[in-house]
């Protein structure tokens, strides 16, 4: 039977609700076009524009947050986008990330011969892609967002033309990324075959309504498997983590911080979208897998980190083990997914994401500062005696590292606490204990860095200069870390509201 083709009615577009995306897009275009047409802008200006854009988008997101509190979750543009608190929370998180990274990049970019606005434009666009992933209500849209983010990241990773390692990182990330997104796409296709749609709302509806014993959903299951592959690749979960250490180490440090913050946030948001929002129907199928992934990721990340001697690489592995922690939260979120009582899983995850992304940006900011003075050397020896040369910086880094280790009165502890609480709440004690033990193993590497800073005798007396912008970032992140560690109440309250999803 053939569709009625005469009259065409386009879907209404809620421009206001899309404002964060539009702002980011506008900022990016502005930077590109104006930047291309005008002579190079004075220092800091690109960064300021990009940062303000991100800030504005974040503020808009906060405004929309309140709207959602009143109207409740809905979908936008013909069901392409979800308009709910999960989306907004992630939007804010990503915007914070972009804000900080933009500031951080200022002096870095200024050191490179290429002072153009492209990097910032790519940050903004990538952020846009991330937000789309976080708020996608259609797997195709999700895929497009994913590709937007990924493509930007491939370029950014390779953006340091001076360094062969940057290039290597770029191509590795690109090839493997393409590989993974092919799987993801194939997964979408198979799920489409299994459920007859790519739209999450329709998918949920279809799965909940048409349950009959004769239909066989093996196709959908295969699709889910491949979807998980794609997402696991993005969040760098063992064994799909292989790219992460090399890319994190090779990419320019500000870009690394961007990947570790925005990239991870978007990926996990997408994971929640796909698994918790779209496929609660199959939670009994995917929860065990996530459990296993969490386990191997925790172990792999923390154990492999122990023997590294390059700080960037250490942090890469530590971010892998953090991903394991977040996966624990996702696993917990699966327990109540789709039921009337969603449980603390998703709030714990989003809380972890926002706290961790700030944390990791701060850490990499310190690495950027140090590597500037050592001519790009980020080996652990280059941190020796930092406390003598730059006590304040060392103290800040110490705070950030302790936070990553999950020491109380830092945001890192709150994050871990939330996740463990979620896991315990759904009685998956085993993984909770394993996670904590892995945290102990991982703590060893943070201690190693601290030792080389505080106890080690500095090898070279090259003065570590702290550029203004980077100093600002470190200060902000440290303050944030401690403040949230001591008074996390309001943020937790906000995260706890992320339980109703637009379907």
């Amino acid at each position, binding site marked *: 039977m053939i569709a009625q083709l005469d009259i065409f009615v386009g879907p209404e577009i809620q421009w206001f609700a899309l404002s964060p995306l539009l702002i980011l897009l506008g900022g990016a275009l502005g930077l590109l076009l104006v930047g291309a047409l005008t002579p190079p802008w004075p220092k800091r200006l690109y960064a300021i524009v990009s940062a303000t854009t991100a800030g504005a988008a974040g503020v808009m997101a906060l405004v929309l947050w309140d709207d959602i509190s009143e109207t409740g979750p809905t979908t936008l543009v013909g069901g392409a986008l979800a308009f709910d608190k999960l989306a907004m929370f992630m939007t804010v998180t990503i915007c914070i990330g972009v804000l900080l990274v933009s500031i951080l990049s200022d002096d870095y970019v200024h050191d490179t011969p290429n002072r153009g606005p492209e990097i910032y434009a790519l940050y903004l666009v990538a952020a846009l892609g991330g937000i789309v992933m976080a708020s996608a209500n259609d797997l195709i849209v999700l895929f497009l967002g994913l590709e937007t983010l990924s493509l930007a990241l491939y370029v950014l990773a390779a953006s340091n033309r001076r360094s062969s390692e940057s290039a290597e990182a770029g191509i590795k990330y*690109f*090839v493997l990324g393409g590989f993974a997104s*092919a799987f993801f796409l194939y997964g979408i296709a198979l799920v489409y075959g299994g459920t007859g749609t790519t739209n999450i709302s329709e998918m949920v509806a279809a799965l909940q309504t048409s349950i009959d014993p004769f239909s066989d959903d093996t196709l959908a299951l295969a699709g889910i498997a491949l979807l998980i592959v794609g997402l696991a690749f993005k969040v760098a979960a063992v064994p799909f983590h292989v790219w992460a250490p090399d890319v994190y180490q090779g990419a320019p440090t500000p870009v690394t911080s961007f990947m570790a913050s925005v990239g991870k946030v978007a990926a996990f948001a997408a994971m929640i979208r796909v698994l918790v929002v779209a496929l609660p129907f199959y939670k009994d199928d995917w929860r065990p897998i996530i459990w296993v992934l969490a386990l191997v990721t925790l172990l792999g990340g923390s154990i492999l980190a122990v023997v590294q001697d390059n700080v960037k690489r250490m942090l890469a592995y530590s971010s892998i083990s953090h991903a394991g922690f977040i996966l624990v939260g996702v696993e917990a979120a699966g327990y109540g997914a789709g039921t009337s009582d969603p449980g603390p899983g998703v709030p714990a995850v989003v809380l972890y994401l926002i706290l961790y992304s700030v944390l990791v940006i701060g850490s990499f900011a310190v690495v950027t500062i140090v590597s500037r003075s050592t001519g790009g050397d980020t080996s652990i020896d280059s941190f020796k005696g930092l406390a003598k040369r730059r006590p304040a910086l060392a103290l800040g880094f110490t705070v950030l590292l302790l936070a990553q280790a999950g020491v109380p009165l830092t945001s890192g502890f709150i994050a871990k606490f939330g996740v463990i609480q979620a896991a315990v709440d759904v009685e998956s004690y085993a993984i909770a204990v394993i996670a904590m033990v892995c945290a102990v193993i991982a703590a060893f590497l943070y201690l190693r860095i601290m030792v080389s800073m505080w106890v080690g005798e500095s090898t070279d007396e090259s003065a570590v200069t702290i550029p203004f912008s980077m100093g600002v970032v470190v200060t902000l992140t440290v303050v944030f870390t401690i403040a949230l560690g001591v008074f996390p109440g309001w943020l937790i309250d906000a995260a706890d509201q992320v339980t109703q999803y637009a379907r």
Partner: protein
Amino acid sequence: MIAVIEPTWYLLLAAMLFGLGAFGLMVRRNPLIMFMCVELMLNAANLTFVALATRSGDINGQTAVFFVMVVAAAEVVVGLGIIVSILRRRPGATADDLAELKG
């Protein structure tokens, strides 16, 4: 009694194509060819989409293919850009040569 070949055939064909693509990416060392293999995989996905669209008589599948093509195009641009920027510096470098970062 229009006996259109049932989609399963196409799906199996796509699966094989996908597998070949994946295999190729794992065995070839020339980055360009590895990239071509990615294209193969994407095409396999496309084929699947269309086949399934036909199966369930739903146009969305075909629309999806449309987007995938755009993605493929963009990916090619970026990917080739990266490859060029590397191979210009190190002519004839294979994927295995780019293994400074490890451990």
